């Protein structure tokens, strides 16, 4: 029975994974092996195939980073950019000429911020989709984006901020982003809601926050309203070496926690009843993962604004290649999200550097997501 189960499972999976375990096993000599040994070998090869896909996505990500860093509106020779970076590392204490300063102080933070944002949002999106068992879930499902937008609107239109100066918008966005997520988490403690209820609560809070934000923008002066629109769409051009480390800390810490919870996420994919039957405290796990995702998304959104579709599409594309095992899916989604983010930024630099990157992620992400949904096979879930 076990042999039949594995054979059927591998037959089904082999139809979906482009580099299948069967394909790899064909390269090996299976003469003299029993059928069970062959099946076990195919399964191991299937696991290695997923690792291979992960490496392919890593190479893609590195390639996009190298391309994006060479692009920008200031006229610099593409390969001269790399020379400037190498010269900078060769002599750290030198006075930077303007070209080197532009590459090091303006482009590098932008690209590194895009990398961190893509990694963080995609990992959070993958975890959210697994936890909610919903392909539409993304890091903003609990209303984080609307909370952050309200906080930024208060800072930009009315000058009401928790911290003075340039940190005002960032701090406001972070604190207000956590408000809807905090409400849902508290509700989870006392009411133990289902994933559907969490999503509906997030949508309700989103409407409330959007209504307050809309009123504030109606009464604000037009310059401030334009600033809010620019912030809402999301961009990477406010990145500096002072802000990039915070986003990396948020993304990487959150990623470590999500990887630690990956086994539980895999189990939650099978449903709450099954998870409880094998001793998993589903409500506690859901709260931990929700808090992690909320902090990741809030920490990222407060610095860059609302960059959409990366957390939604990145996990979907990664899932097509590596399957739904969160131990592989979460890192694959991270790399895919980073690649998508930097690809979008590269297009911005080529088409119109004045355009916020959130516009391009919508142009790219919307049709890609529609395509994925239209052709979606239920076996992926």
């Amino acid at each position, binding site marked *: 029975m076990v042999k039949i189960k594995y054979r059927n499972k591998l037959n089904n999976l082999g139809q979906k994974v482009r580099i299948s375990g069967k394909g790899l096993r064909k390269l090996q000599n299976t003469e003299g092996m029993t059928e069970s040994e062959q099946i076990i070998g195919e399964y191991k090869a299937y696991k290695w195939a997923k690792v291979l896909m992960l490496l392919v996505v890593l190479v893609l990500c590195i390639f996009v980073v190298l391309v994006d860093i060479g692009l920008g*509106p*200031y006229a610099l020779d593409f390969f001269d950019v790399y020379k400037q970076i190498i010269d900078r590392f060769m002599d750290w204490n030198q006075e930077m000429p303007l070209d080197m300063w532009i590459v090091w102080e303006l482009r590098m933070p932008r690209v590194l911020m895009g990398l961190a944002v893509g990694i963080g949002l995609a990992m959070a999106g993958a975890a959210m989709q697994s936890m909610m068992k919903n392909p539409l879930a993304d890091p903003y499902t609990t209303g984080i984006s609307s909370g952050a937008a309200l906080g930024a609107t208060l800072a930009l239109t009315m000058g009401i901020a928790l911290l003075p100066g340039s940190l005002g918008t960032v701090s406001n966005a972070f604190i207000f982003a956590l408000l809807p997520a905090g409400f849902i988490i508290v509700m989870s403690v006392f009411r133990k809601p289902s994933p559907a209820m969490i999503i509906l609560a997030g949508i309700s809070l989103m409407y409330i926050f959007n209504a307050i934000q809309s009123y504030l923008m109606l009464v604000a002066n037009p310059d401030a309203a334009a600033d809010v629109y620019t912030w809402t769409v999301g961009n990477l*051009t406010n990145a500096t070496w002072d802000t990039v480390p915070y986003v990396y800390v948020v993304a990487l810490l959150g990623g470590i926690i999500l990887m630690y919870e990956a086994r539980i996420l895999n189990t939650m994919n099978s449903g709450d009843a099954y998870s409880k039957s094998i001793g998993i405290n589903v409500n506690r796990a859901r709260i931990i993962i929700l808090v992690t995702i909320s902090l990741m998304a809030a920490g990222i959104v407060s610095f860059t604004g609302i960059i959409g579709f990366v957390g939604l599409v990145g996990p979907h594309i990664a899932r097509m290649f590596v399957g739904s095992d969160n131990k592989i899916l979460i890192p694959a989604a991270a790399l895919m999200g980073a690649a998508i983010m930097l690809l979008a930024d590269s297009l911005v630099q080529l088409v119109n550097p004045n355009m916020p990157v959130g*516009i391009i992620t*919508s142009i790219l992400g919307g049709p890609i997501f529609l395509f994925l949904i239209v052709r979606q096979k239920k076996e992926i879930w």
Partner: protein
Amino acid sequence: MSEYTGNRVIIVALVALLVVATFTAYGLTTFWQATHPDPHQQTREYSITGVIGDEPCSGSCQIEYVPESHTVYLYSITGHVSSQSGKEVTLKSGVVFQKDDSMDRNRYDYVGTDVIEDQEVDIWEDKENSCRYYVGDTCQILRLEIHTEEYMLIGVLN
């Protein structure tokens, strides 16, 4: 219509709505910026006179805002100057202002003030290329002077 097809229709509609909302926000912002241009982002033309070696020369240059980052105002300086004997100088450099319209003292030396066309200007000298900028409000460079061993040029805002 099956439930699965119905769900897909809803998803498609929601995604389309999201994309439309994004474009609407961008369109409104672009419209606002077009009707209320930021004076920092204007491109300015300059007439240049001076000498290359011992020969008089003339030409033009342009200082254009470059949207490399929203944390600074970065401008590229491009121009061309030539003399009657065919000697030419191509100008290509840049200048950076902080967000508060001041200049970074690690990169530029503050020289003093002057008055140009009844406007008080600050004079800054670029440590890298010995170029002097006469800067008014909103990062407007009213005059620039470039001194090297080969040429001496003065640019005046048109």
